[in-house]
């Protein structure tokens, strides 16, 4: 008997129970396993999963929240674990990129090797990177240098932490890394794969030019030649000391045609610069963003995916931690998760400290990867 696509979940905090519960429906061992799980159980769970699936390649990512299709229990979300098994209708190959902070490019040959194991068409490269190393861009550069002009989208997430702390993990075949990235080429034998992103934040009137930045540290020092935090406070009519508590209500974005690339403002640095969650290049024109209609993101996602693939069999979502927290605060998580479940019979999602799409590291975004 062959397996196709399996998903399972567990709210338990005990690794053995998680594996038992989440893999209860796994009739056979899938070739590749991808799981999202909170930091608190991640290391032990990784061992447990390796023991339970000795013949599968396993890829794990720590998350703030997981989203999943809960069959009879309704759709679920929370700091729980979701396990996805890619079976025979997928070809998967992947690996780990270490040294992400300095030179992930050293792992380009490994990526290249993995790439050559899957066909080019109907393939996506999933990538998950431990957060706060400022490494997402280098990882994307590295993957892009291998993929070249091939028609393969790169989509992924920075890993998360259920307590909004800085420790995050990824794992590969039973090894846990606190500073690494995993990549997984997934080829859909049944049909297409489409990737779509939707923003919740929308441009305000103010626009700036990033005139002094440190892209390694993800800091914007100056906007329009003036100290960045002060300039932002001025535009938002806050005193500088008030700005900190409002930072998450705003963002900065780069508009390319109709596409908006959103970057989250993490904090005000000592030099009164703005530390961003993603790198901002010098000389870029940025628009100030504010929260748009919170439900648009989801409805646009559903409509957008339907247009591309009317009936996907599986949806994988990446929802930015800041959107998830906001939905929690306004009591909208049930509706949101139910909405995620409307597109396909099975879905799973992760909520981490950033989203990655092709060559760009972004935030405050909902991303959907649809498998036909």
């Amino acid at each position: 008997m062959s397996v196709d696509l399996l998903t399972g979940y567990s709210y338990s905090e005990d690794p053995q129970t998680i594996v038992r519960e989440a893999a209860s429906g796994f009739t056979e061992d899938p070739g590749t396993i991808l799981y999202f799980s909170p930091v608190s159980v991640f290391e032990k769970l990784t061992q447990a999963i390796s023991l339970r699936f000795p013949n599968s390649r396993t890829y794990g990512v720590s998350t703030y929240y997981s989203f999943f299709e809960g069959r009879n229990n309704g759709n679920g979300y929370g700091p729980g674990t979701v396990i996805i098994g890619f079976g025979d209708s997928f070809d998967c190959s992947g690996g780990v990129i270490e040294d992400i902070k300095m030179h992930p490019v050293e792992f380009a040959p490994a990526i290249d090797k993995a790439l050559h194991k899957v066909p080019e068409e109907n393939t996506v490269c999933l990538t998950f990177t431990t957060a706060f190393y400022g490494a997402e861009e280098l990882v994307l550069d590295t993957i892009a240098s291998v993929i070249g002009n091939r028609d393969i989208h790169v989509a992924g997430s920075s890993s998360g932490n259920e307590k909004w702390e800085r420790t995050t993990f990824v794992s590969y075949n039973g090894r846990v890394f606190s500073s690494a990235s995993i990549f997984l080429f997934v080829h859909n034998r049944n049909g297409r794969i489409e990737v779509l992103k939707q923003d919740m934040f929308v441009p305000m009137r103010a626009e700036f030019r990033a005139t002094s930045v440190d892209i390694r540290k993800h800091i914007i020092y100056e906007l329009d030649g003036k100290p960045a935090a002060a300039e932002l406070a001025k535009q938002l009519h806050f005193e500088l000391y008030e700005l900190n508590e409002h930072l998450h209500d705003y963002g900065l974005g780069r508009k390319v045609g109709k596409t908006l690339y959103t970057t989250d403002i993490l904090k005000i640095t000592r030099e009164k610069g703005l530390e961003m969650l993603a790198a901002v290049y010098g000389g870029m024109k940025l628009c100030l963003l504010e929260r748009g209609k919170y439900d648009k993101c989801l409805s646009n996602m559903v409509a957008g995916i339907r247009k591309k693939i009317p009936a996907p069999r599986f949806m994988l979502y990446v929802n930015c931690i800041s959107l998830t927290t906001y939905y929690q605060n306004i009591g909208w998580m049930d509706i949101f998760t139910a909405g995620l479940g409307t597109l396909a019979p099975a879905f799973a999602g992760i909520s981490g400290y950033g989203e990655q799409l092709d060559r760009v590291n972004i935030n405050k975004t909902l991303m959907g990867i649809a498998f036909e």
Partner: protein
Amino acid sequence: MKKDNDGIIYTKSKCIGCNGCMLGCPVFDANKAIVVNGGTYLVVDSDRCVHCGSCITSCPHGSRDYRDDTDAFLAALNNRENLSVVVAPSFLLRYPEQSGKILNYLKNRGVTNIYDGGFGGTLSTWALVNFLENHPEGGFAIAECPVVVNYLEKLSMKGIQHLAPVFSSVMCMGIYIKKHFNDTAKLVFLGNCPARKDEFESPGAEGIYTYNVTYKRLMSRIDASEYEDLPQEVELDCSYPSNMLFAGGDAKNGVAQFIDPDKHVLTVMGGQRFYKYADSFCDNIITSENGPYIADILNCEHGCLMGPADDKNIMEYIRVWERRAGILAKARKGTDEMLVDRAGVSPAKRLDELKKSLNTFLSYLNPADFRRDFSDRYYQQPQIPDAIINEVFDYMHKYKEEERHVNCHSCGYGGCREMAKAIALGINRRENCVYFEKYENQRLYLTDLDTGIPNLNSFNNRTAELMRKHEVSKYAVASFSLMDNDLMYSRYGYDEVNKCIKEYARIAGSMVSGRELIARKGDVEFLTIIEKNKMDDFLLNLNEIVVHPSIGQREEEFVINICAGVYQPTEEDSVGDIIGKASIAHRAARERKSPCCIYYDDSMKDGSVEASFLTKAFSDAIKKREFVVYYQPKVDLRSIKLHGAEALVRWIHNGEFISPGRFIPMFEKNGYVVHVDFFVLDQVCRDLRAWLDAGLKPVRVSTNFSKVHISNLVTRSQRPAGSVGGGADNDPSHDGPKVFQSSAPELVGQIVDVIDRYDIPHELIEIEFTETTAAGESERLAQVIRDLHEKGISTSIDDFGSGYSSLNLLQTMDFNVLKIDRGFLTAGIKDPKTREIIASVIQMAKALEMQVVAEGVEKYEELEFLRDKGCDMIQGYYFDKPMPGEDYRNRLVSPEYEIREN
């Protein structure tokens, strides 16, 4: 992470940002441009810099320097700390006259031991040979030069895999001293290389050397008088003539002596020759089958004899080398085994000898003591996508392909693309590109910096260009200003208003096309040159622009109104004339204090000085009641009695009489006449009230209302929503103001208000309108007349016969009184034609049931003629000239006149 400029190489504050230091810099991102007080300044990114010292030499302004520990060492010496010094052999060569004296001086100051560092060369050679014996495959670079080690650690991904893991001679010497001499003193290295400090701080080297002191700095800190009398001869620990072999750090004199001569020992003196090939060196060259067995790569062209801290004078280098050769030649005659004639001795034998000679005193040495590790400090440069590079180019104002390939290298990079990359990476700024600066200077010259639209210079250039091409007459020029800015400032504050001006300018700027242009002249003043047939529409659109000021978090809409003066240039005008004339018209428009547009005519120019004087004096005149009302009686030709009077305004300013001929036309242009007319009406009503109260029987007084009242009228439907008091008439045929401010009922209401304020019977007031009111306004005038009649106020048409549309007027409106223009009488009633015309006018008025008043009657014959033709009243010097109120009061008391036959 170190802070910028915090490392061994740093920029002094006198840097002028000339980028000279970047030219020889082997590291793309080691220099970072920052802006200090408006000027660019290049600092060193201490994490990226490899401390090659190239910029110290290449900076033409002496702004790059290095840090060493000379001052700290001298301070420790003063504190009598336990210190031992390792001297690089090159010190003796570089300073043959002073080196011994200085070392003696240091000894005298309390230095415990002074070691000849050259022996470190023997040690590191031995350790290296030992390593190679275990790695016969070779393919290693010697880690003698700390700059090369820095480079391979920081800039080559695989660099450290190809470094032979043996400390440099300097470190080997330090390790040996610590371990085998048990010297507990703080160790000082006196050498020629600031970068040596990096090795002292590398993993495994901790605690060996405390201070890295350079010759140059030390020499500059010690006064020659303190050592010049000391002996030059100095006794050094661990000193052998063969130590000189290692002066300069040359592997040919070291490890090459002990390996198979067929094996390739590559020596590269001068990092610049190596760095750009470092990656392929590591990836291919050193790993290839016939690649070098061992490579000795030194950053400095003359090796460590003249390090990064040295002045690198070639003549000095030659002398140093001569000295070295001399010392070695002398020593060869002696007993040093390493220096006896080596010809014919095989490397294997040499190695054997070396080992034996070392073993006599190094039998307890362990090669592992000299093993080192390297740090992986390679940082993958972010790839900047083309889309980002293109956006940066736009930001640099390089829009065209050729502008993106200027490649002048002034920024210090290999070309424009590298500079764009550096800007994207945040390590440089566009201000550092000469092309941008040139563009920027031009832009600054031609652009209004606050709004980003062109400035006056730009306007001048464009107008001059159109004049050169003889096309200027196809255009019209408007000078205009935004109104209500005081209101805006007080409501929204300075910053918001500035933002609104910017927004306004951006929108206005987007409305011009082709060679048209809009420029900011001053705070809220603009100039525009537009195809002349488009000008009226253009101004109309400019008058409706909505901006968005904020109050706190709330954004509001504010409709900007403008007043404009327009001039249509001719080929004969100069640029100055054009701007001047538009400005004169603009001044007139501004004085209207309501949204309007006035076209220039020459009378404005002639009167402009006068206008400015009168305009300034006006508001005081109203306040001080400098305007006074004179009355000129109208006498009934049947009863020869006073029947009415015309109120005439006079202005007495500082005792000077200003004739109405001077100020009324001016005030008609700037709109002040409206205030004057109401002032007169008010005064008339006051006087009438006083006379009534005194029991007199005043007769009807006519008072003039200028055509400007009618021009100002607008029907309610013409007012744009939200505009501050006005809309626009878009009839280009007007040469008067085209923007209006009140309705006919409002005007009549205001008149009635004044009359009623003094409780004057309405029939005692007559409103005189001139007949020159433009055709387009006749409908509004008719409405006013109807409304006045409804209120019981009579009306007259003044100066009948002076305009062109008189008959039309009579046809469309029902004046009560017709006043024949004095011009007819001036022409003289002897002229039959004049007589005929006057007779016809009187006849026609009668037919229309109007009373007729003839103005300017001075002669008896005129009176007779008019009475004969049926004229009702005359007004003129024949009976009375205009007189002050008190005199006129007397006329009321005795209203009879006499007819005199002159």
